[in-house]
């Protein structure tokens, strides 16, 4: 946890290895007094001894000395060539990025052309002309590798120079030479150093390969490639002869690659966090028999979701209970992080595997009219429910459809997943659905790709797909947030029309932070804050006479009258300062206490319960009765 250490912890070990690797060969005179070229024919193939730790080779030369001095040659060739390539390439790249125009073309195209050549072949071509030797090798390798540096420096410099602080210093009139040296270069050092170590490893491979062919470093100067070449003929008598240089060479390249990998991780710590396709299985903790009110299509009872290791798990949502009814639209409202999306994913059985369900019961009415307890359903059972009895549309229409498959394919896939039928019939149904959601020239679009459609059109396709098996419940997670205002209104109208005319009995769970839209579409509103429901009731009651200070703040932050569909993608509250607490840092008592204008000492004592203020309206606030409606 020492933050002042400039080297990240994971870099320490590879760095030490790398330094050892580079220093050891050059410490050869300290390690062995032997001359790598001194022959002693009588002692050829002598086994390792006290004088000769690794034995002697086919000419009786000391193998340890040859390995160490051979390492000097390989490393020198590789690092000198790489350094030249890096310096020249970076200069080219920076010049290209600075002047653009023909320089840009030259820099990037050159790399394309050189990449075409299998590097060892170009090296061979040059060796034909100039003869083998270390100098030829260095020259060839630097020519081979500088375009790659040029391309990286070019691309990175363009990226960096578009960053704010560089723009700023340019605006302040800093000379461009200074900008390049002070700001651009340090910022592109990361990718360049990765390329540097990759190139060094590649250069060693090529050098040793050429030496192995007898076209690289010229004898009697030792080199690893040559040692393997020499020992090949005797591998039966003396396997050590090939093993030792093979190990030295592989280890060297491995250490450089290892260093490079760690460096890449350190510079670009993306890591693979929970992938969206890894799902955690729902559970049920309720002993109660699954039972749904006759008009309900789904219910959530006492849902509690946690994350983190079992010993110190954090509640993401707790005590969430919801009943979703047929022909009704329930809106789930709250800021990002309030737990509204998690609640809906839990209903779909789509929770990411880093989140566990600790408590609660999730019930669903399937189309066969039976009540299904998700916690008692197998993974295969969930597959049968999803898309068939319960469907979902997501926030980002731009990325929710697979870009490499035709729209028709993806729709037919949804239909055939649950309703086996001839392809033609599925196609016709899909086209009808596309027409239903208002896609012009549906037959042509059927054979088109998602990238040919606008965001609004894609969301219509998503809706058509979600309704293709006539589910009982449709979850719409911020379905309009990513869209333009006018398109938003159209999509909302479409959803309302479909619920009225097409899908009779459909229950809609509409997740949004936009109260304007909610007031348009929802019959009931459920407000969530920091993982808990804080207010719940019929839309007109909740929105006209909010009892919870948080709901009031939400209303206050609406841009205009709530008949207006204006929305911004920014779901911060304007009316109250601050942001919702992180799940691991909730204040004691009421989670809203920090931001609540009405908070009193008693609010810190215990978490308020969700109490009825009327038959249909409940609020989680100890001062609910005192709230004056605006």
């Amino acid at each position: 946890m020492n933050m002042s250490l400039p080297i990240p912890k994971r870099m320490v070990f590879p760095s030490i290895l790398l330094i050892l690797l580079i220093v050891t060969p050059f410490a050869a005179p300290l390690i062995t007094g032997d001359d790598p070229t001194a022959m002693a024919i009588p002692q050829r193939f002598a086994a390792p001894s006290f004088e000769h730790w690794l034995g002697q080779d086919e000419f009786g030369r000391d193998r340890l000395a040859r390995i160490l001095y051979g390492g000097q040659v390989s490393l020198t060739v590789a690092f000198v060539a790489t350094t030249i390539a890096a310096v020249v390439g970076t200069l080219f790249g920076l010049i290209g990025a600075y002047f653009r125009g023909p320089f840009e073309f030259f820099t990037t195209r050159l790399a394309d052309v050189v990449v075409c050549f299998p590097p060892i072949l170009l090296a061979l071509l040059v060796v034909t002309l100039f003869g083998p030797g270390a100098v030829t090798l260095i020259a060839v390798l630097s020519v081979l590798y500088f375009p790659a540096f040029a391309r990286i420096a070019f691309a990175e410099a363009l990226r960096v120079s578009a960053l704010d602080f560089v723009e700023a210093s340019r605006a302040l009139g800093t000379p461009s030479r200074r900008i390049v040296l002070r700001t651009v270069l340090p910022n592109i050092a990361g990718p360049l150093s990765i390329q540097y170590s990759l190139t060094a490893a590649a250069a060693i491979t090529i050098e040793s390969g050429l030496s192995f062919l007898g076209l690289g470093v010229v004898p009697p100067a030792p080199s690893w490639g040559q040692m393997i070449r020499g020992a090949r003929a005797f591998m039966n008598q003396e396997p050590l002869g090939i093993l030792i240089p093979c190990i030295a060479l592989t280890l060297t390249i491995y250490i450089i690659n290892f260093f490079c990998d760690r460096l890449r991780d350190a510079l670009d710590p993306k890591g693979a966090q929970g992938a969206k396709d890894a799902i955690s299985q729902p559970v049920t903790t309720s002993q109660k028999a699954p039972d749904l009110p006759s008009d309900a299509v789904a219910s959530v009872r006492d849902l509690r979701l946690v994350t983190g290791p079992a010993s110190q798990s954090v509640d993401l949502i707790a005590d969430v209970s919801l009943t979703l009814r047929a022909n009704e639209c329930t809106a789930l409202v709250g800021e990002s992080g309030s737990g509204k999306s998690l609640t809906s994913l839990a209903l779909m059985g789509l929770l990411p595997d880093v989140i566990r369900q600790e408590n609660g019961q999730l019930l669903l009415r399937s189309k066969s009219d039976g009540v299904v307890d998700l916690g008692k359903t197998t993974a295969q059972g969930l597959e049968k429910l999803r898309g068939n009895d319960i469907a979902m549309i997501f926030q980002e229409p731009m990325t929710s459809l697979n870009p490499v498959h035709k729209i028709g394919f993806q729709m037919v896939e949804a239909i055939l997943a649950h309703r086996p039928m001839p392809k033609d019939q599925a196609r016709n149904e899909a086209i009808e659905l596309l027409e239903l959601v208002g896609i012009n020239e549906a037959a042509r679009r059927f054979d088109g790709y998602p990238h040919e459609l606008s965001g609004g059109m894609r969301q219509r396709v998503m809706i058509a797909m979600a309704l293709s098996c006539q589910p009982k419940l449709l979850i719409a997670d911020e379905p309009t947030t990513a869209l333009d205002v006018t398109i938003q209104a159209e999509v909302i109208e479409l959803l309302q029309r479909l619920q009225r005319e097409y899908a009779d009995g459909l229950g809609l769970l509409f997740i949004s932070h936009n109260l304007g839209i909610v007031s348009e579409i929802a019959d009931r509103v459920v407000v969530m804050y920091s993982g808990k429901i804080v207010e719940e009731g019929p839309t007109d009651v909740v929105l006209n006479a909010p009892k919870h200070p948080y709901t009031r703040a939400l209303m206050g932050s609406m841009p205009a009258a709530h008949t207006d569909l204006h929305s911004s993608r920014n779901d911060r509250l304007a009316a109250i300062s601050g942001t919702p607490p992180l799940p691991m840092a909730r204040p004691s008592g009421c989670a809203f206490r920090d931001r609540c204008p009405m908070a009193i000492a008693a609010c810190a004592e215990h978490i308020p319960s969700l109490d009825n203020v009327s038959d249909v309206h409940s609020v989680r606030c100890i001062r609910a009765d005192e709230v004056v409606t605006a």
Partner: protein
Amino acid sequence: MTAFLLRRSLAALVMLLVVGTIIFSLLIIVPGDPAELLLTTGGGTTTPEAVAALRETMGLDQPVLIQYLQFLGDTLRLNFGTSIIDGTEISQAIGLRLPRTLELIAAAAILALAIGIPSGTYAALRAGSAFDVITSGIMALLTSVPVFVVGTLFIYVFAQILKILPAGGYTALSDDPAAHFRALILPAVSVSLNLMAIVFRMTRASVLEMRSHDWVRTATAKGLRRKLVIRRHILRNAMGPVITVVGLQLGILLGSTVLVEFVYNWPGLSGLLVTAVEQRDYPTVRAIILTVAAIFIVINLAIDILYSVLDPRIRLK
């Protein structure tokens, strides 16, 4: 699509021309007289007559422009001239040996893809599992072992100690198919290991990335069976980047065959090349390198086209 094909083919042709020009101009930009250079490098001595004779065989006595046009015309007609060492027809020698090299490359590529893609996919889908950790470790090692090291060690283990496979050599398929394929195993595996490691890494990274895309969640939400989600919405999308990387690595693959053919005494293009380099037979070296570059460009064109079939968005760019 047609426009895309035309554009790509045109670009490939231009690339061929550029490569040819660069190879041609190497002779022009070397300091001094190339003929003399070829005859004297490595400390040899020569006579003015020999130099003049070589200049004439290589056409170096002509003006540069004439030489260039001559070179282009000859190359187009696949007429690479004769070897300056023994006067054999270069095109013929290449025609005889090229199929053997291609066979080696094809076998190696198939092996690399057949093992790299499934293991990479499995490792990504079980990221962090024992399988993932162990396979990733082995593959990291494989990226670091030079081909000729693998080749040499394979000969030691399989031919010298276990004596189950030949240490090298070549038998024509028509003579003895079994012997032909037995001799192919070690060279093909040696060439494939590096590529296999790269394919594995790329597949693993690509599948990991594709897994977390929104459309995968959409597919799951549709109720698609897990197997289909993986095949159609993860793997299918992951293949694009993998194929591109394979294309970029082909240069290295072609380079590997040079060493592997030498190690196993496989009578492909590379044996010819190494001998030609040793003997400073410039026309032969040049012809082989042009051939290889052409193959490389054609394969890359094929990969570009394949990629555009896999991902329709590419065609727009």
